[in-house]
């Protein structure tokens, strides 16, 4: 009798706590935004700048998130090393860019610049895909039937292995990405400030995402991937090569991450061995936001996270007088991760993934 009351009490206090949690978050968002907007420190142009920045950032997160979401969809595991695959792509693109710059092609004229970027992305995709396939073969495939935490721990191991392999190969220093001059120039539009690099990032990200969507939905290989995500054993009985479908998933996700690595590095102009870790976790957040295992969800989640991270610190926190709110942009991203996991683990579009499969 007594213990039942205790249980009832803890149940009540837990749900009460969760409600208080929701109310606090909503209050911070609403009151913070209201305060910031009424203070009128920022002009409309600033907000548009922030939103455009968030769009570029968000489309990169979306590209990375695709890899997380597809692997989760097919294997039910968090590929913790995906951020390092992204970083590896950025390194591949870096060396391609250095080579092209030495050949004098990188900044010869806008046409060669665009071609150079295409080559950089291709090299990055090749590097990332090779690494991801190797990691799958060595670290993940033998553990496919183990309890869920075991492949996750192996993935954490793979993540550190890749980080410190790159640190060993290329040193701990930060590499400054070669400048592609054309990309730094402003787009000649009077009403918004926009650099060509943002246009490049957004356009190429959307083209690649559209291509991936068609690949998954329309091609035979894509159908095989979806069938294996649905049920491995039945798919095998239908004559689908399960291992090949899984490797293809890793390869495609890694290619997207590699391309994202180059785009990210073109935006922020640097790469080093640890530079994949934080974007990786954020892209995972984006994947969860959109509903993990769901391809359009990952794109939506990425764009949403990009905006939250870009606008959020200024909009929610500046009004409270928080000093240098942009330091806290990662806090906003990670808080969103926790919030989604707690209150809507299936994500925005996540109704497709049910508990038994995940």
């Amino acid at each position, binding site marked *: 009798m007594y213990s039942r009351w205790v249980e009832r009490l803890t149940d009540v206090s837990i749900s009460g706590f969760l409600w208080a949690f929701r109310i606090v978050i909503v209050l911070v968002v609403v009151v913070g935004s209201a305060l910031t907007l009424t203070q009128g420190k920022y002009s409309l142009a600033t907000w548009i700048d922030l939103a455009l920045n968030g769009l570029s950032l968000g489309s990169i997160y979306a590209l990375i998130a695709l890899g997380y979401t597809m692997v989760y969809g097919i294997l039910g595991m968090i590929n913790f090393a995906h951020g390092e695959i992204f970083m590896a792509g950025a390194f591949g693109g870096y060396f391609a860019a250095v080579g092209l710059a030495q050949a004098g092609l990188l900044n010869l004229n806008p046409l060669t610049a665009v071609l150079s970027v295409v080559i950089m992305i291709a090299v990055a995709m090749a590097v990332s895909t090779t690494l991801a396939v190797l990691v799958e073969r060595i670290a993940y495939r033998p553990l496919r*039937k183990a*309890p869920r935490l075991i492949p996750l721990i*192996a993935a954490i*191991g793979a993540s550190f*292995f890749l980080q410190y392999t790159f640190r*060993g190969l290329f040193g701990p220093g930060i590499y400054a990405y070669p400048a592609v001059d054309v990309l730094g120039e402003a787009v000649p539009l009077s009403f918004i400030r926009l650099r060509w690099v943002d246009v490049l990032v957004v356009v190429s990200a959307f083209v690649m995402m559209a291509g991936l969507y068609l690949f998954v939905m329309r091609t035979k290989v894509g159908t095989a991937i979806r069938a294996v995500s649905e049920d491995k054993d039945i798919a095998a009985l239908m004559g689908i090569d399960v291992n090949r479908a899984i490797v293809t998933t890793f390869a495609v996700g890694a290619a997207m991450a590699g391309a994202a690595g180059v785009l990210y590095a073109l935006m922020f102009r640097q790469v080093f061995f640890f530079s994949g870790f934080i974007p990786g976790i954020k892209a995972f957040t984006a994947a969860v936001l959109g509903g993990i295992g769901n391809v359009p969800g990952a794109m939506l989640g990425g764009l949403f996270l990009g905006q939250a991270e870009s606008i959020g610190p200024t909009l929610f926190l500046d009004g409270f007088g928080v000093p*240098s709110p942009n330091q806290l942009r990662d806090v906003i991203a990670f808080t969103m991760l926790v919030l989604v996991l707690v209150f809507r683990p299936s994500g925005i579009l996540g109704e497709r993934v049910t508990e038994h499969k995940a």
Partner: protein
Amino acid sequence: MTDARSAVMVATTRHPWGGVVRVGLLGGVVAVYLCLVGIVPTFAERPLISGAISLGHTALAMAAVFSGYLAARRAPAGNVQAVAAGALAGAIAGSALALLVVVGEVVDVRAVMLQASPALYDLLTLGMGLAGFWIPAVAGAVLAGAAAAVSILPSSYRLPLSWGLVAVVVLGLFAGLLRTPMLTGALSGVARFLFASDGLTPVGAVITFVVAIGTNVLQRRVLVRQRIAEMPATRRRALLAPAIVAGLLIVLVLPLSLGGFFAQVIALVALYVLMGFGLNITLGLAGLLDLGFVAFFAVGAYTVGLLTSPGEFGIAQWPFWAAIPFAALIAMAFGAFLGLPILGIRGDYLAIATLGFGEIIRILAGSDLLKQWLGGPRGILNIPKPIDVPPDHFLAGPHQIYYIALACAALVAFVAWRLRDSRLGRAWIAIREDEDVAQALGIDLVQTKLLAYMLGAAFAGLGGGIFSALVGSIVSSSIQLFVSINVVAIIIVGGMGSIPGVVVGAAFLIGVPELFRELSSYRFLFYGIALIAMMRYRPEGLLPSRIVRRELHVPDEVAAPGAPVNGSAAG
């Protein structure tokens, strides 16, 4: 399915030497990797046998030895074939290095590969440069052939030989550390004879090798183990008591005789043992993978800093002993606060959510927002030592932290050990095994998990508090992800839920890299390899608890084919 089967058929009908060649190629990849990632050139700075063999050469030799061993097992039957297979694999692996030398000397690849320097090529060719490109291939063939030959010897020869080599490597590593304290005592002559300032002397190496082989042979002849096993239980217990006393003496007294640097290292090891015991409750017993351990570590460290520091940010200037219980309590409260919302979610999501907490706390600690209270990147300074003694007292340095951490670790171990067999502990293990079944048995999941999470948090806070006293300050850059990863790796490598496993894991993963600076820049590389290898080959850890070992090695006829080996955290 038919594909898989035909693949097996192909593998068995392949040429018998194909496997050997593949081992050789793999060995070559590993050897080139060791060179290019910088392990060989960095380790080469540390001699093992003074003036003769460096640790870098040893790393490459180990690659060759492994290739030889694996090749011998894949070779067709017959002694000559086995040795030939080893030599072939070693030659192939060495040829990869030879190729590296040739390519590197002809084309300069340093623009991409930082480590591909002339110094590396000198190392590989023993100083001969391009002219000596054949040296790694020949050396690989000889070493791997020898390893293959040893591997087919009967075990009464093989094991003593292996022991001898291991003893030389280990003693060579520790030579510098052992020599310094020995030089002052009566043993200074022995120390000079065996140890150079940077490794074993050649004579010392030979002596070590012979002595190790001798003791091993003797031990096998006298059948020590068998005799102990045959003893009646009372006599065995009588033998155990002096062993325990000796162990305690080593743990308690030995650190005093070694220098301050060593004390600093073992204080850190003891601290990680303490935190490992704490996370062992959360991860080992309850199966909750907490990647945000550093959050509670930070809470404890800042609590002690704020309460004790007489400096700028201190608020109370309490003594350490009054502050440390609050470190644990406040960390526990944080554990409850952060744990309550997230403990309902599934195991792998929980890991990422806790990782998020760790990052949030890390960013907040260094942010301008909390700078006026926590000091931002400059942190809280002048945290006093727990025991105020004159500088020449034997407890003056990090020794006192070592003893405090040791005492706390013993306390935590006791708590964990008693809890494991309690009603609560069994509830944790039940949750780890299968959440759904545990719930069906009437276990309140969130409440039980919350207790495990809060206890883990409390011990992390304790660890953080002691850490801040050890360092004497707490700055935001001490709050890093690698603290969490260290503790998780200790438990995974040592064995989930196992108390001796944590001690061994901490000694290996914290102590060894701290003692050897050459190793420390590659520690996370080794962690990564260790985590993957442990998950593949020994998921229960090096020293597993009995239950975990049993559940991860279910006999095949018991486990349904294709079913998960166990259901832990898969609920």
